[in-house]
């Protein structure tokens, strides 16, 4: 008879995302592998399969003959409901075996608003939620990813965190586990040993002591574990593991194309940007390696599109050579080459025009702030002149579409800065009227504002997030200033960004809030159709906590919940940058001279951007 899953599949949306079986998925013999890993992405298949990190680590783990790593994604609401109704536990795509049968359960976490999905996935798996309630070596839960540099809100649920780049450390973890399993270690013994691997943070070994006002008094590590855990990096990207043989989804995903990383890190130092600091030091791949990997990926996947990804692609030193060579390969094969994150400088303008030969994409700018003064505060050194010149080039070349991204609520922002956003939009309209070669279809400016969220490991980690009411006042101030029909203005939901801020700088006490929120039905919070702010507010209240506490201005010498972690950039540097921001002083990019952030100490022989 048809099994339960196959009976449920016809009743849910997009069933292909629940069965695996894609080209190049990895299937091993259960009888011969010794360690089975359920690699969980705490959101939908379409998002998770678009994640480059997950693809790399899936490859890394499965390169180990004794290990079989399989994929698990969060079910959409309709599937979750059916699973609960029929008592069908969460399964891994490759074997369809229940997650609770796996040795290790790994999560890659990229977004605060996926925390509830982690809890929910553990619940749907039938695995005890609290780390303390999982007593054996079976079902060890670990996590990594860009959103685990402040691991504290998840500390109750995750046995250990793997901080930084996982190409090498993941192998060390799995080798240790293999040994622990063979020698029948206790969980405590295993976690003690894990804590000795550089980059591993075992929260149970750190006691957080609070003051009466709710701030941290101190963090006390147990004997024998590092006081501060420093993230791991891969020294030479050219030699780092990169899978050119990757799973090709049979159903459409968000980034349905091949993806290549030009470099890690960023020379720019925008003061709000967590990625810009957490991925330092700067390490590049050579054009030779990138070209080889690009061709191999494209031939292996059959993709007709490839993206070159990085935090700021114009800063890649070999960009001209690389794009030239790649275009020579792509054009005759009708492959699209896309290159996001280009800056608005001269070379990029020419490049942009050349890239459009295969396919015309839109123009996107992220000035982030409406006035030069505020752009100096955040150290985003894109100038109005650059934006307008690029627009003029593009409009005369036939473009009529511009996307503009800003933030509201940045430190020191005034109404003048907010109105500056509208003024910039009007200047772009004026440039279009003067330069557009094709005015028939009119100009369309998509302008959107996000609600600034201060993040750990940025100069703004001390900054307050303005209250939601004040954010909405500024939204309406801007909205009223935009009268042109060419501008479509969208703004981020206040409640969601408020919560994101509370979780981003949250402490260990938020574990109870997460748990309560999930009990009250919170999950898939990143999706409008599921985000339930009332459940969250209810959960905070039930735990006697207030999101506003985590959104306030933090004290200069305050103990941060994430003080046991280092991304390589010193607190002193962040503080200096924050003070410069307050004075409206910019910091030149790293190529104009090292600013001494400290991340170069992670590199072999102190190398950065070589």
């Amino acid at each position: 008879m048809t099994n339960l899953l196959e009976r449920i599949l016809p009743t849910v949306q997009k069933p292909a995302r629940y069965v695996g079986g894609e080209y190049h998925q990895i299937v091993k013999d259960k009888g011969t592998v010794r360690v089975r890993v359920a690699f969980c992405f705490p959101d939908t298949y379409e998002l998770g399969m678009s994640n480059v990190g997950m693809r790399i680590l899936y490859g890394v783990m499965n390169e180990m003959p004794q290990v079989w790593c399989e994929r698990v994604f969060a079910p959409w609401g309709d599937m979750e409901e059916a699973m609960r109704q029929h008592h069908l536990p969460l399964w891994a795509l490759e074997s369809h075996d229940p997650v609770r049968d796996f040795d290790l359960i790994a999560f890659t976490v990229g977004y605060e608003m996926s925390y509830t999905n982690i809890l929910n996935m553990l619940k749907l798996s039938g695995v005890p939620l609290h780390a303390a309630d999982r007593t054996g070596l079976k079902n060890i839960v670990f996590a990594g990813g860009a959103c685990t540099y402040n691991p504290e809100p998840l500390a109750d649920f995750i046995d250990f965190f793997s901080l930084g780049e996982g190409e090498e450390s993941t192998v060390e973890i799995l080798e240790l586990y293999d040994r622990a399993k063979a020698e029948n270690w206790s969980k405590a013994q295993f976690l003690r040993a894990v804590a000795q691997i550089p980059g591993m943070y075992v929260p149970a070994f750190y006691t957080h002591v609070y003051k009466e006002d709710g701030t941290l008094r101190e963090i006390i590590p147990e004997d024998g574990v590092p006081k501060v855990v420093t993230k791991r990096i891969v020294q030479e990207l050219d030699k780092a593991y990169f899978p050119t043989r990757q799973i090709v989804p049979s159903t459409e995903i968000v980034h349905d194309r091949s993806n290549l990383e030009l470099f890690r890190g960023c020379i720019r130092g925008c003061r709000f940007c967590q990625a810009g600091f957490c991925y330092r030091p700067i390490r590049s791949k050579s054009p030779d390696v990138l070209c080889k990997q690009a061709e191999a990926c494209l031939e292996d996947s059959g993709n007709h599109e490839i993206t070159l990804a990085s935090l700021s692609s114009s800063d890649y030193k070999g960009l001209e050579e690389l794009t030239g060579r790649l275009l020579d390969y792509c054009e005759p094969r009708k492959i699209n080459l896309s290159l996001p994150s280009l800056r608005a400088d001269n070379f990029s303008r020419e490049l942009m025009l050349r890239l459009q030969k295969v396919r015309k994409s839109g123009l996107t700018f992220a000035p982030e702030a409406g006035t030069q003064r505020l752009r100096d505060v955040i150290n985003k050194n894109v100038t109005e002149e650059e934006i307008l010149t690029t627009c003029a080039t593009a409009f005369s070349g036939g473009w009529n579409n511009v996307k503009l991204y800003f933030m509201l609520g940045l430190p020191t922002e005034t109404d003048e800065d907010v109105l500056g956003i509208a003024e910039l939009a009007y200047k772009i309209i004026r440039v279009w009227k003067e330069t557009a070669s094709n005015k028939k279809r009119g100009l369309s400016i998509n302008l959107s504002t996000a609600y600034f969220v201060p993040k750990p490991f940025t100069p703004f980690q001390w900054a307050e997030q303005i209250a939601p009411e004040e954010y909405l006042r500024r939204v309406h101030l801007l909205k009223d200033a935009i009268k042109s029909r060419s501008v479509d203005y969208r703004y981020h939901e206040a409640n969601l960004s408020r919560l994101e801020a509370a979780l981003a700088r949250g402490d260990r006490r938020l574990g109870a809030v997460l748990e309560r929120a999930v009990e009250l039905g919170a999950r898939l919070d990143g999706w409008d159709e599921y985000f339930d702010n009332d459940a969250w507010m209810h959960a905070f209240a039930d735990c006697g906590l207030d999101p506003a506490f985590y959104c306030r201005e933090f004290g200069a010498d305050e103990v941060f919940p994430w003080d046991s972690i280092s991304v390589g950039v010193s607190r002193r540097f962040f503080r200096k940058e924050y003070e410069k921001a307050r004075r409206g002083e910019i910091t030149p990019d790293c190529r104009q001279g090292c600013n001494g952030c400290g991340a170069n100490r992670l590199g072999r022989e102190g190398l950065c951007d070589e």
Partner: protein
Amino acid sequence: MNRLLFEKCGDAVWISHLDLMRVFQRAFRRAGYLLKHTGGFNQHAYVSLALPLSVGTESRCEILEFELDEPFVPAALRERLNAALPVGVRVLEVYDSPRKLKELTHLHAQVVLEYDGGVPAGAEAGLSALFTRETLPVEKRSKKGVSQVDIKPMLPSIRVERPEDCRLLLDAVVCAQNPSLNPMLLVTAIETHTPEWKPDFAKCRRVEVLAADGKPFR
């Protein structure tokens, strides 16, 4: 016209119509063949599936039309495509056909009815009788809403079999184009007219595509 006859079974049955086109577009590239691209603003590789297949339905008789820029050897194309396709999608034949797709008029399909507690007494005979009625009105749900259709004129032949204790099999020929009958509506007919024999689960497979003369269409 260049055509592929392929089957779609196992977990591949969950791949949707649009996604399946993407699967083939990539598989051709992986196999080392560049499909002819459409002109225009957004160029894309041209493939076309003869009869869209519902998600969840297995098939041994799917037809895909394609064009390449260069000449090719059918047997080699078949072999290389099969090495490049996901599990469950398999090319059976690569051929050139002068026939128009509109000559494909009927579909040989089978619907499996599963009864978890065993096939109820009398169901086999009862369903045989049901499908010999003069008319078989059912409610058809579509994006436009609910409408009443009589499926009987689109059902030239049907046989009820009992291959196992827990299963009945409806072996039917249905109209495939203008109008077409989704074989799963046979289950709706059971639910509507003889709810006592409603199965616990039903699934469908396409066995063969037919021309007006009752012979396989290629």
